[in-house]
């Protein structure tokens, strides 16, 4: 618990430090958290930022017998409640360990069975803080919560072919605006609440475009 609190504190501290560095000096001089102020002044759901990301897991703990493949992700976010509301959908294939289990029959024949491959789809929603949306360099961070759907490479109809479990985790994203587009890099640590826990830390990059929210989407969100 203490370790978790320490990690959370470090994360928040890092976020605030970066925020201070990226906040315009005149705003800091006024004693205002300019990013927050600026976003708060932005009308809720005024714009949508939609992005496509690709990424890799560089730390996988808890399900060591499965190796992660590259992921693809769609991500959209919009201003809300002084920060940004975010929705993600991510896909990643995982390869099961070859020759995981060894069995020997009565005749001494050795059989090796492989673990099934699995494809995961994460559906996530969350909220985070961001510095000024019109800044050239943007920094944002927050928390995502959602569900991981796991489709195992088993014959159709097999019990347990589709499983799901909740996942939660923080993320930090750095971006740079280039015209209507933004290029992003992101680090996220996700914990799937399986037993045993399934923890991953991943790095991803992508490009997003920002546009005015269509009226019908704004009506849905408001």
């Amino acid at each position, binding site marked *: 618990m203490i370790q978790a609190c320490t990690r959370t504190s470090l994360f928040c501290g890092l976020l605030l430090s970066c925020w201070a560095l990226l906040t315009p000096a005149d705003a800091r001089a006024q004693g205002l958290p300019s990013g927050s102020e600026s976003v708060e002044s932005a009308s*809720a759901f005024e714009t949508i930022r939609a992005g496509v990301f690709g990424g890799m897991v560089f730390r996988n703990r*808890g*399900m060591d*017998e*499965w190796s992660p493949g590259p992921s693809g992700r769609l991500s959209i976010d919009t201003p*809300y*409640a002084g920060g940004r509301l975010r929705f993600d959908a991510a896909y990643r294939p*995982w390869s*099961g*360990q070859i020759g*995981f289990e060894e069995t020997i029959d009565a005749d001494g024949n050795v059989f090796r069975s492989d*673990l*099934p491959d*699995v494809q995961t789809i994460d559906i996530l*929603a969350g909220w985070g803080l961001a510095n000024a949306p019109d800044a050239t360099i943007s920094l944002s961070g927050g928390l995502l*919560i959602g*569900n*991981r759907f*796991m489709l*195992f490479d088993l014959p159709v109809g097999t*019990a*347990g072919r589709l*499983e*799901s*479990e*909740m996942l939660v985790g923080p993320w930090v994203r750095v971006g740079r605006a280039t015209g209507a587009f933004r290029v992003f890099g992101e680090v996220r640590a996700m914990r*799937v*609440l*399986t*037993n*045993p826990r*399934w923890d991953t830390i991943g790095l991803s990059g992508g490009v997003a475009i920002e546009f005015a929210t269509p009226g019908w989407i704004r*009506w*849905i*969100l*408001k």
Partner: protein
Amino acid sequence: MSGSEIQTTGAVRLSELFRMMPSIETWGSDRYTLRLLGMGLDGQHGAQPVMVLDGVELPAFFLDRVLTEALPVAPGDLDGLVYQSELEMSDAGRLSAGKLRLSTPMITGWQASGAIAVINETGDPGPAKHSDARRDNVDRSGPATWLRLGWGDGIWLVQAGLQTDLHHLTDTRIAGRVRRTYSEDAQPIVTQFSPFVRIRKKGATTRLQVLAGHSRRKDFIFHEAAGWEWPARLQRSWAIAQASKDFKGFSLFVRADGSEGSLTDRPSFIALPPELEWREAAFSSSIMRSGPTWNARIGGSARTFEISQLADGTNTVNSRMLPGIHASIGARSDRWTFRTFANALLLDDDGLQSSSTSYVVGTESSRRGPQGGIDLGIRWQSGHVPEPGQLTEWTRAGVDLGEWMQLADLDAVSSHSFTPRTASMGLTVHRSFKGAWLGWLDGRIRWQDGQLLQDRVVTQPFGVGPLLPEWSWSGPHSGWLFSRSIGLERTAADRIVWRTFFQFHHVSSEGDDVFFRHQTGFSRHRAWVTASDERPGGFRWFTRIGYLSAWTWPEYQEPARRSIPGDLVVDATFGKTLMSGHLNAMVSVLNLPDRALGNHPAGVREQLAIRLSIAFSTHSDAASR
């Protein structure tokens, strides 16, 4: 709880809502029953709370628990909920321990509404299921749904509704036991389907309510005494009509209700009780004379029920006719209100009783002042009150329940007649402070005597067949139960709503070991804080932080028993309205009592679960209510 506070919880089932009101567990906390949402209230331990919907009592007592999810109301319908922890006998002669008063608003025009929720407990093994064969999935709950279609003009309300529920009992401990009794390969599933219709008139002098419904439930009814799940199919049809009219100086009240049900078995490997049917009807009427500062009411009732079972070609039928009378006198002044009442039920042929009359008498008084007030209630109950949904009533009716209700022992007890009696007193003092804060102190004492209890010391794990616990009926037993609470709350509509309390329980058996073993540990001392709020823009949240004291159950001894340490429980719900208030989406992180600890069925600890719920309404204020 106010309507907006109820909606911030994101609850879709009544049982989800009630677990946010821990005072309901004042006298009994059958945590096994509570471990699965949608399984109703309590179990096995005497009279249960009764649900009162807009002034209409809704009997839903079956197999020693109140099946709340079969009632024609869901949390999304409510604009208020009040719990009163008092022993009562209704005008129709039904005994209840506490009332849950549910109120719903009248609507204008056409309105359609509904909600759906799924709960996924965390702790599934995920891929690890394939690398470690010992791992298995935990339970899943849902989708639970309710739908309403209604029309109203502020005076009349006509509504049709449907509630459905689904549970997957995938938890190894439960599924393993169930699979040993259940001869279908399919995953153990509990389903419920409950449609209803409702007509309500709320006029200046005339009030009318007509409700009718049907409920089908495929269940694994856990009977704690039996130690295993009964794979049962329950069907129940019911109708209630209640009317009152004010005349000059007096009012007239009339109520009639009827129900019929059947209990059949799902396929199983073991012998189960043969099909059971029951029918019940009740009528009550009273007249109330009122003056400016007083009222007096007197009335009569008749209740009849029949239990029948076809076993080995013989149809065992047991029927009862229970006439009753009730009377009350009330008075009020600017500050004081006072009411004293007596309800009596005449038992025609009850071989268990030395007395042929069961009754509840009591008084309740309250004083209200500008800074606070005081409420005092005193009750005395004597005699056995038969209920067709009670297991002991079935055994008395000669119903074949196999060996698990220890029928022979009950007969032996029957030959020694004794009268169950209960005296209770509750005192609440409350005072308001600055900033819309309200503080309160509550003390409750209940003395029970002549109780029929199970005499048992369980030393083995629960299961089927040879692992059935051995026990016998025993009586009469007596003892004292105490509850002391202190609380502080702020319920101002435009600010964060806070509720906090501490409740301490105590049992005194005066040397009656059976009473002590049966009661001790049922209720845990608890400290509770809840906070909720609705923000502009439709954002709403509800959170609960509670501490439950360490727990033991003396009826269970090693290796069946394992002491349960103190629990810190944290629940949180966040949500937002969408589509201009027509849709309400909520995410909840809940702690459900569902993690195994020890072998006994109540040995459960909280397990983290996530609930997703979506509610809709054609009236934007209703979805966001």
